[in-house]
């Protein structure tokens, strides 16, 4: 078991966003979390990465409690997050953005190798590497955000709505690459998506979230054929 959320409850002030959720992810899996707007999907990721730590419940990463750790300590354990809305550094160049991803790493040789790998994965970034991050297109920014997270060489990659505001073709491309990352580096991926159809096609397993609760948990195939899911999230 790589990651386990046990009865996690997170609040924003007095408002409870997560009402005791249980999630488990094994090494090498792609797991997706789908749900409507405001269901608490992003909060789940923020709770894992420690940016909005849970008030109740426990989070284990490789059998270690991480819910009391600061965000930087969690990153150093091997959890990397691609925040919603990309959050790249607009005035830093693509290269500098990528270097920020490797902020906690001290192995410069391997960091350089990873950089090569990323430029192979996203050839467009090679052309753009001296351009300020803010001047990239939406799709390129998303690619940059994913690459930046990969630069930390994570064991677990948290992706928050990578399809947000992107053209269908670009989304497809990005999902392809997520699969590739998972396949070649055995990086575990936890994917939060509104685009349920695409996410379930990519993932091994899925969780469905409503109003701060997990209401369904199953393999992707089963979820795709589940009548309720089809009605509520796939629009079929």
């Amino acid at each position, binding site marked *: 078991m790589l990651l386990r959320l046990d009865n996690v409850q997170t609040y924003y002030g007095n408002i409870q966003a997560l009402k005791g959720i249980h999630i488990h992810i094994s090494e090498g899996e792609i797991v997706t979390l789908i749900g409507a707007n405001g269901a608490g999907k992003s909060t789940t990721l923020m709770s894992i*990465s420690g*940016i909005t730590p849970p008030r109740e419940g426990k989070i284990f990463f490789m059998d270690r409690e991480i819910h009391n750790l*600061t*965000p*930087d300590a*969690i*990153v*150093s354990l091997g959890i*990397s*997050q*691609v*925040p919603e809305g990309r*959050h*790249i*550094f*607009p*005035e*830093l*160049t693509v*290269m*500098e953005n990528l*270097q*920020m*991803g490797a*902020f*906690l790493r001290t192995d410069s040789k391997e960091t350089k190798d990873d950089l090569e790998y990323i430029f192979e994965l996203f050839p467009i970034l*090679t052309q753009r*590497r*001296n351009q300020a991050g803010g001047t990239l297109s939406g799709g390129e920014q998303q690619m940059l955000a994913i690459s*930046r*997270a990969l630069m*930390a060489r994570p064991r677990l990659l948290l992706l928050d709505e990578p399809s947000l505001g992107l053209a269908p073709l670009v989304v497809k491309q990005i999902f392809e690459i997520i699969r590739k990352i998972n396949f070649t580096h055995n990086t575990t991926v936890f994917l939060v998506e509104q685009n349920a159809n695409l996410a379930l096609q990519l993932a091994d397993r899925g969780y469905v979230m409503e109003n701060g609760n997990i209401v369904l948990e199953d393999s992707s195939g089963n979820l795709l054929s589940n009548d309720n899911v089809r009605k509520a999230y796939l629009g079929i």
Partner: protein
Amino acid sequence: MLNVSEMKKSLLVSIWFMFLTFPIMVIRVNPIEKIVEWRWGNMFLVGIGSFILSFIWRYFIRQKESGLKKVEMGEKIIPFFEKLRSGDSIYLRSLCMTLSCAAAVFPFVFSTYQTTIMTTVLMYVVLGLGLNIVVGLAGLLDLGYVAFYAVGAYSYALLNYHFGLGFWTVLPLGAVLGAFFGILLGFPVLRLRGDYLAIVTLGFGEIIRLVLENWNEFSFGPSGIANIPRPSFLGIQFSLQQATVYQYFLTIGLALCTIFVVNRLQDSRIGRAWIALREDETACQAMGVDKVRTKLRAFALGATWAGMVGVMFAAKTTFINPASFTFIESALILSIVVLGGMGSVPGVVIGACILILLPEYLRAFTEFRMLLFGAILVLMMVFRPQGIISNVRRTYELKGVPGRTLRD
């Protein structure tokens, strides 16, 4: 150029200015003879003046816009300073040589008064560079920076008064105390950003000043502390003139040291973390940057320089009181950073020169000094909103290898 619509615009401007300046330029009440003088001639002059100036103004605006257009068209306009840095290093080297020679002989050529002014400028260079760490690099708007300056000055004055500690002992102590107060301010404001941060830091600056003003037993209140010894050199007693020169060179040393350190900091890991923190806090946290520590470091390292300059200031003036550490002082230092170009070291140096030297040399026009000062600031913001020298971060390019760049 001289078409009707242009004339009309300028005419409107001149009428508007005549109207605006009417109460101060035209009416003069003479309370002794109890009459009102109407100086219509002045209004006429204002009208003519603003009419002509508006033409010049529009000319420069057009210049600027065409410059921007060129940049948009893909033409690269390399600013003068960049040319100097990237191009022929001979120019740069000779410029540096000239400057250092000029700096070395300055106190022997010019009067003590001029030397004192230059010392002040150098002090503000250091202050500006210190604040530049907080504001320019880390993006934390600090309006109470003068508090750390006061901490440094008072630590020297009080430690000397009570314990007889000398300048060289207190200089590092002032730095440490400055850093300590920086962290003290840093802790409560960690969660604040932007305007709120500015307000709290402004309050902090005022608190320090008010404490110094009112806690008579501790700081001797508004009457201040006098007879602070000048810096010594191996126990040699200097005459006033020698002491001024000595202090001048000390300040140059401190300024050079600051420039060196700030330059190194900018390109370091922590400097990168500051810049990233300025750009996007959430992303920074997701990258594993310790937000708390990074912010506190910025406050502490910024305040360190203010503490040191504070010690220097106390030793230079030999008398300090809280009136030297008002909000205006913070605003001046901030203006130096903003005018020079946020995050840019040479910008801050030039900014300090302009903002400190200008009021000094405009003393001849005492009445219009602040007016000119204000006008120059406004002009700067219109024509170079990025500051005189906008910050260009260094990039390292490996020549010869196509499609590959390395950055340190």
